[in-house]
């Protein structure tokens, strides 16, 4: 993984902790662990807060909950979606 890729995962974890006011250090969030249900146990209200945060932080769009289901599988999948969106944006 390139340094730029690691930095994105770090920024995503920081954003999750900041937007959801979690009381854990960002690096405790495992990159491949599920964010919803098990894992961090986030819910749909948390998902909406994350969507708004990600869209503002990275200037991307997450159009609906169907896309969101795939994007929010893990920190890694969020970072991949951000990367892909930014490439498509050019």
């Amino acid at each position, binding site marked *: 993984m390139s340094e730029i890729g690691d930095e994105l995962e770090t920024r995503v974890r920081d954003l999750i902790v900041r937007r959801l006011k979690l009381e854990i250090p960002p690096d405790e969030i495992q990159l491949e662990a599920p964010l919803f249900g098990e894992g961090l146990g986030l819910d749909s*209200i948390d998902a*909406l807060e994350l969507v708004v945060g990600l869209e503002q932080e990275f200037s991307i769009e997450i159009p609906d909950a169907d896309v969101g289901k795939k994007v929010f599988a893990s920190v890694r999948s969020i970072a991949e979606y951000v990367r892909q969106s930014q490439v498509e944006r050019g």
Partner: protein
Amino acid sequence: MQPDPSDPTRWLPHRKPFLFLDRIASVVPGREATAWKRIVDSECRGVATWPRAYLVEMMAQTSAILLFSEEEGRRGRMGVLAAVPALSFRRSARPGETVVATARLEKRWGDLARFNVAAHVEGELAAEGALVLAAREGVT
């Protein structure tokens, strides 16, 4: 006779004393809504100012107008307050003053919607922040 779009009861199931909007000033469906209310003595019941929690409910009711504004009607649904991600207060409203609440839809997510809201009292910022409403079925 066509329903009056400035009448809040056209948009919401709430009725007094739980309806906190006198008139709807404007609605841009799916985007923005503005409503106002004049505070009367009887609503303060001996307290010098209108409770700030009522400002939150007023902004929530203004937001709820936008939930179904792009459809044919509520069809028995209503918005319920699900989260308050951010909120700050600057001043209170007093009897005789008019409060103007504005709500801008920021994002829809399934049955949830996030709004940027503000309330102004006599032109001064009284409260601002973000609210999340959930659309619920089978109410009235």
